[in-house]
């Protein structure tokens, strides 16, 4: 025992010339350092993660939200109460929240509302038709925000479920490819998506061109709730597809076969056995979609026009009008709601993860023969495929098309405009090349910082008790508005904070942006690494420990190689989130030269035509795709 104990503890093996173990090559000078890293590395990384999240997330958020509850050095509920009792924000609930004890009056109002329902007989295309007349309700800003989030969630689920069905039940060429690119829309920068939607669904958009060819009338969806909801579905339906497909693939076919053998028909077996196993995943995805669309900002800002506004947009407007206290109060209410939803989501996700036992893979061929395409089921799938093309491929293709056309003719004019701007532009103007360079730099920095952070959080929360609470705290960046974080970073860290003693903490623009990106990205690393980590047999980790590997060493030698695919996916996420991040970046980059590609796209959008913006968007698409490929290639080497 003593022999091995001292060798492991002292790190004095370095002077031996044997070359089998990698750590023996470390020179004698570095040996104590290595030992310290070995022993404390994990704890140190965890501490550093907590520090970064604390400084770059919790501190700025608290700084901003404090305005809502502290006025003139005293704690007050007045600003939050003002929001909660303002019909503009909370609609009919304002009276209830303002006078919670006037139960009689509120009940009266409910009864009054219910008696307002009317059935009216009318005609519809000449046919007699019954109309239900629903009395109007003032929903307020929060009501509208929740309403659009609900619509978006419903549409995302409706679009996503058939996709999950096809992907998990049929075999066809490119199935795996499709399954992996479902991640793509989710990480596309909102600005780019907005450009794509302008180009696809705008008055002169590709859709109207196509409809025109078919002799059908114009549709203009821009600046309506419809386009916002469709854009949200563009983002979140793939999310639904992903989680549902993952659950569907782990449904043990033998459970279905057992149900069939017990007398259930195919439909009944599906309802009784498959659906209950899918439901947790669908609900998890739906909850996540609701949270994301509740906090939506750039999509509504750019596609919704002046009339539509969500809470987040309003927070942004109030801040631009320097009404900080009201913005903070709004943000407090918003944050409480979304944190509550996140908590619900995390609880649900755990339950969803505990289901599923692995499956026997047997998928029907999607196109067994050409003749089979005529069956109703196959026809429906073909129709769905067309919808997917319009909704997902359409906007991106339209954006690329818009970047190389001008009034119907092919041209490279917009790229020349960008080039001229690069060469001749004044220093205060937004140039394309610095935007690309900044984006890549921030993406690199995010990768380096967010991946270790995410891995450490995943390890810590999965293996320790009390991990639930820690996980919720660590996941908070998912559910707090980027605007708030951005403002907090600007006020707190960019302008500087006094520390005890003669010190002053200042994070300059680029560092603040990179830190904000890392904090926004690492929850996604946690989400991609965590589930894989918990799938590793505990005995595998313990075997390594018993064989003499320290905790940190076990992580490097055993766990990370086994979850390499998750780490690579997390890294790709981190890069994509960083490149696409808009909310914090647009605030922190204000007036400086640290703008990124999405900020550049947004600034070019201000001009009359879609041209320069879509050219910039196309460049961004190319850079994002290239970054993805690089991460995947380089990361793929570590996978087995």
């Amino acid at each position, binding site marked *: 025992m003593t*022999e091995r104990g001292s060798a492991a503890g002292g790190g004095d093996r370095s002077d031996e010339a*044997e070359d089998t173990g990698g*750590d023996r090559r470390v020179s004698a000078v570095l040996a104590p350092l290595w030992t310290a890293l070995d022993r404390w590395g994990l704890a140190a990384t965890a501490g550093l993660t907590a520090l970064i999240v604390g400084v770059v997330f919790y501190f700025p958020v608290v700084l901003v939200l404090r305005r809502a509850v502290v006025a003139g050095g005293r704690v007050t509920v007045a600003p939050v109460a003002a929001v909660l009792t303002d019909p503009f924000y909370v609609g009919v609930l304002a009276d209830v929240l303002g006078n919670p004890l006037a139960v009689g009056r509120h009940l009266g109002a409910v009864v009054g509302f219910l008696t307002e329902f009317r059935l009216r007989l009318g005609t519809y295309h000449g046919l007699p038709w019954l109309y239900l007349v629903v009395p109007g309700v003032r929903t307020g800003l929060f009501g509208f925000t929740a309403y659009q989030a609900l619509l978006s969630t419903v549409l995302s689920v409706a679009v996503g479920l058939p996709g999950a069905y096809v992907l998990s039940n049929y075999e066809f060429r490119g199935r795996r490819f499709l399954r992996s690119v479902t991640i793509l829309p989710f990480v596309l920068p909102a600005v780019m998506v907005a450009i794509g939607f302008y180009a696809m669904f705008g008055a002169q958009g590709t859709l109207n061109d196509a409809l025109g060819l078919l002799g059908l009338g114009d549709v203009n969806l821009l600046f309506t709730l419809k386009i916002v909801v469709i854009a949200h579905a563009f983002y979140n339906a793939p999310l639904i597809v992903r989680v549902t497909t993952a659950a569907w693939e782990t449904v043990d076919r033998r459970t279905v076969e057992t149900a069939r053998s017990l007398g259930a028909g195919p439909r009944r077996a599906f309802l009784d056995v498959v659906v209950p196993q899918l439901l947790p995943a669908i609900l998890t995805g739906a909850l996540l979609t609701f949270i994301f669309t509740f906090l939506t900002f750039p999509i509504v800002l750019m596609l919704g026009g002046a009339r539509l506004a969500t809470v987040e947009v309003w927070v942004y407007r109030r801040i631009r009008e320097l009404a900080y206290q009201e913005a903070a109060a709004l943000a407090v209410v918003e944050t409480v709601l979304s944190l509550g939803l996140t908590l619900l989501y995390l609880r649900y996700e755990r339950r969803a993860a505990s289901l599923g036992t692995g499956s026997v893979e047997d998928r029907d061929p999607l196109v067994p023969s050409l003749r089979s395409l005529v069956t109703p089921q196959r026809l429906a799938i073909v129709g769905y495929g067309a919808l997917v093309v319009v909704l997902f491929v359409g906007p991106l293709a339209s954006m690329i098309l818009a970047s190389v056309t001008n009034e119907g003719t092919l041209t490279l004019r917009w790229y020349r405009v960008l080039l001229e701007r690069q060469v001749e532009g004044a220093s205060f103007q937004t140039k394309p090349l610095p935007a690309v360079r900044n984006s890549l730099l921030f993406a690199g920095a995010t990768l380096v910082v967010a991946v270790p952070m995410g891995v450490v959080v995943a390890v810590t929360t999965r293996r320790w008790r009390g991990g639930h609470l820690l996980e919720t705290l660590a996941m908070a960046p998912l559910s707090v508005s980027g605007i708030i974080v951005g403002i907090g970073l600007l006020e707190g860290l960019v302008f500087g904070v006094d520390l005890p003693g003669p010190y002053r903490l200042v994070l300059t623009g680029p560092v603040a942006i990179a830190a904000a990106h890392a904090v926004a990205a690492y929850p996604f690393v946690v989400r991609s690494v965590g589930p894989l980590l918990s799938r590793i047999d505990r005995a*595998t980790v313990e*075997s390594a*420990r018993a064989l*003499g590997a320290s905790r940190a060493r076990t992580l490097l030698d055993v766990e990370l*190689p*086994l979850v390499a695919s998750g780490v690579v996916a997390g890294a790709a996420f981190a890069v994509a989130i960083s490149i696409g991040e808009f909310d914090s970046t647009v605030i922190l980059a204000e007036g400086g030269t640290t703008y990124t590609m999405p900020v550049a796209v947004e600034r070019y959008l201000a001009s009359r035509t879609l041209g320069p913006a879509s050219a910039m968007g196309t460049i961004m698409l190319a850079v994002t795709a290239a970054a993805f490929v690089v991460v995947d290639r380089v990361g793929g080497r570590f996978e087995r």
Partner: protein
Amino acid sequence: MVSIHLDDLGKRYGDTTALESVDLDIADGEFFTLVGPSGCGKTTTLRTVAGFEAPTEGTVRFGDRDVAGVPPEDRDVGVVFQSYALFPHMTVAENVGYGLRFADPPDGMSAEERVAQLLELVDLAEFGERDPESLSGGQQQRVALARALAPGPEVLLLDEPMSALDARLRERLRRQVRAIQSELEITTIYVTHDQEEALAVSDRLAVMHDGRVEQVGTPQAVYRHPATRFVAGFVGENNLFDAEVLGPTDDANRRVAVDGAEWVVPSPDEDGLGGASLRDQVTVCVRPEALSTDGGANELTVDVSEWSFLGESVRVHADWGGREVVVRLPDVPERDRLALGFDPEDAHVLDDQN
């Protein structure tokens, strides 16, 4: 090599108690088995020795060294799990050599020589470059054993290592493990729920139940003289009869009444009263093979309900006044009623009603 001592070990998870005052002394080089039904605390005990769990009470000592707070990697233990837990991203040889990254191989060998030696030991010399997934379950478990032994640990911990294997393979591997253990003289703790395996393989064994140790002893002692009703029922098949003590017959025996029948059974002498026990309720344990059709001092006539042919013997389930009785007989012709008998020395008496 080293001896292992558990003193008053306890483990609580919130309100549930996994272990309660476990005291065990395992000798240097001993093959010691923890046996019991699932949830009895045997695996928790093993994990506490390995350092994967910290006890809430009591101490674990290796020799005279208290190992509290010593992480698993510094305990010098080799562990083999039921699930093999091979590293799927390493070859067989890399798996076996993993522990040698942190400790020098014994006897001045190089790591390569040590890996080759261990693979030889478990008859897998040709398999070094294979992926673990390409091996059969039994082969994987032998790799796991070689991996655990490679750094030359002082203690070998085996957590249900055979449970995932089929019966025939299990037997063979068990003998192989035992042979290797005897050769290396390594202190070994073996966890199993299979009492037959525990009897076959151990120097000594501890029967555990509900987080407590019920009995410690050699396989023969535990089989012949179970200390509690639980042990009597768990280790080997047994017939347990509640009996009322009528009085002593002589120094070694006493008369008891079981459902109207009167039997003469041995008196436990640990109370020093020579049969005049203070208790009047005892449990009489009679092994199925102790009952015979050739008569004996004590008699019972049973109605046969099930007759199973086992090859060289038959097992008979029978009814004796509403109680089920199991009998093991040489291969005799089947019949409906059996007149059975046993002698006092073939019965075992439990004083405690627990």
